[in-house]
């Protein structure tokens, strides 16, 4: 049995591990166009900040692939898939046959059509190589402009600020982290980062990147005509899933590769996992992309197990994220902003350390579908679990609004149920 995996992110790694756990004999080939062993994509901004160095980037020890007996093909791009003949073609012409194929090709920063984006000093931040290029550019950078106030933009701005660089974040919407945070929460973040010296410009866009071929970028021009001097521009305006191979294989594609709950594509010998995938969002009852690290890990694990003969169903997937800005932490997940048909509850206060806190929970009828926690993030995962399992929990919603929310606020039967999934003895003990 030959398993071929295209990709080298966390989905690809977890799939390889899951396959080997079930199939001691099969051949596992992993093909990636990057030259590195699987590394932490989220750590790329930490590398820019200098909070980690290169040795911390890999998520497994060297020799891990050898232990798994994975044939690694590094630095080679897969360019086509013949789903009939079950062959993957690499750049250069080499052909690789498969019995089962996993596409874990991830995503790439959306190309930008802003004039001047070709100048040196203009970067996205997605790959380890991106971090390295940015670090090189830092040597001649005093001012940086970050285009986009989303997760990548704000993480990168945070990293650059910590280097003592003057950072301006240019945000189209009225607030930072607009996909995740309501205005009140976003403004808590804004105030904290502005206190630390970051400049945030909301409600505007970069219309042109200025500079010349000799020095690279020297500034940007905003919608209203103002210019900001800078030697580095980071473009954080979203990513597109990488679909070339899926298209080549003739797979069904929406915004990304369609997968069922076994992570199969429309071709039952081809699986897909990670940022290239549209999975089932059980909160919205639709196919949707939820391209975050934990989902990629889970999907990879399920895909790998099923490629090797299991029949595991992946759970529904939703977005969530955690961030920290100079001690102001935030964790948000699910349908965070509410909207038509949803009930939103919220509470704010001040912590013992003087930090403001804000909590918002979103209900769809009886079921929790989203939460935003700023300032007090302890035990956030309990809320994630309630969303994931679609627990009817409106009856104790008010307890979730307090930073002291913990397992003891759950009704005893629910707690027993949760514990019984890992320890049948739990059911025997009374509360």
């Amino acid at each position: 049995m030959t398993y071929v995996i295209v990709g080298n992110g966390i989905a690809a790694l977890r799939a390889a591990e899951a396959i080997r756990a079930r199939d001691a004999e099969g051949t596992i080939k992993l093909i990636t166009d990057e030259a590195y062993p699987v590394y932490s994509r989220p750590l790329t901004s930490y590398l820019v900040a200098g909070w980690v160095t290169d040795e911390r980037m890999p998520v497994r020890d060297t020799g891990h692939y050898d232990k798994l007996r994975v044939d690694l093909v590094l630095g080679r791009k897969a360019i086509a898939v013949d789903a009939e003949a079950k062959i993957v073609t690499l750049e250069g012409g080499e052909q690789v046959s498969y019995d089962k194929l996993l596409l874990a090709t991830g995503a790439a920063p959306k190309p930008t059509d802003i004039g001047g984006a070709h100048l040196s000093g203009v970067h996205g931040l997605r790959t380890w190589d991106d971090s390295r290029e940015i670090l090189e550019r830092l040597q001649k950078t005093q001012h940086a402009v970050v285009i986009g106030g989303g997760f990548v933009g704000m993480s990168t701005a945070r990293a650059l600020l910590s280097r003592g660089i003057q950072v301006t974040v240019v945000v189209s919407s009225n607030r930072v982290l607009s996909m995740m945070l309501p205005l009140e929460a976003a403004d808590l973040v804004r105030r904290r980062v502005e206190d630390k010296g970051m400049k945030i410009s909301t409600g505007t866009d970069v219309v042109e990147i200025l500079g010349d071929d000799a020095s690279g970028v020297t500034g940007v021009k905003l919608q209203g005509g103002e210019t900001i001097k800078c030697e580095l521009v980071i473009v954080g305006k979203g990513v597109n899933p990488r679909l070339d191979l899926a298209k080549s294989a003739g797979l069904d594609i929406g915004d990304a590769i369609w997968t069922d709950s076994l992570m199969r594509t429309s071709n039952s010998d081809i699986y897909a996992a990670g940022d290239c995938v549209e999975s089932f969002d059980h909160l919205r009852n639709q196919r949707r992309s939820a391209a975050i690290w934990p989902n990629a890990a889970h999907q990879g694990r399920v895909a790998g197990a099923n490629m090797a003969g299991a029949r595991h169903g992946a759970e529904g997937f939703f977005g969530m994220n955690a961030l920290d800005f100079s001690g102001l932490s935030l964790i948000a997940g699910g349908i965070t902003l509410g909207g038509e048909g949803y009930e939103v509850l919220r509470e704010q206060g001040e912590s013992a350390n003087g930090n403001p806190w804000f909590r918002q929970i979103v209900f769809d009828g009886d079921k929790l579908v989203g939460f935003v926690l700023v300032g007090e993030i302890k035990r956030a995962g309990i809320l994630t679990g309630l969303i994931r399992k679609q627990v009817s929990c409106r009856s104790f919603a008010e307890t979730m609004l307090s930073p002291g929310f913990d397992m003891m606020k759950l009704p005893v039967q629910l707690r027993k149920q949760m514990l019984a999934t890992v320890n049948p003895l739990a059911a025997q003990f009374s509360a």
Partner: protein
Amino acid sequence: MDACMTGALIKEDSGKVEYYTDKCVGCWMCIMACPYGVITPIPEQKKIAKCDLCPHLDTPACVTHCPTAALVYSDTDPSLLHEPIAITDDIEDEPVFIEG
């Protein structure tokens, strides 16, 4: 362990979730993920803390000290130690996509 972005939290074959503090950067993704809420942030260190089952003791300290046997350290069915994933015996042989 799915959420950890540095490889600091890994579920060993024994079922125990091991924490490698050197790899941790204090990103709080594990706090976001743990459905039991048992991961504690240590903001001053940018690290987390979680129960390690007292590897240096025969029996975890909390169990030894509990005067009412409310805390019980027991072996459980090993097959339950790895996250139960919905078994879908009734899944079609061919992929079925939800309209949406």
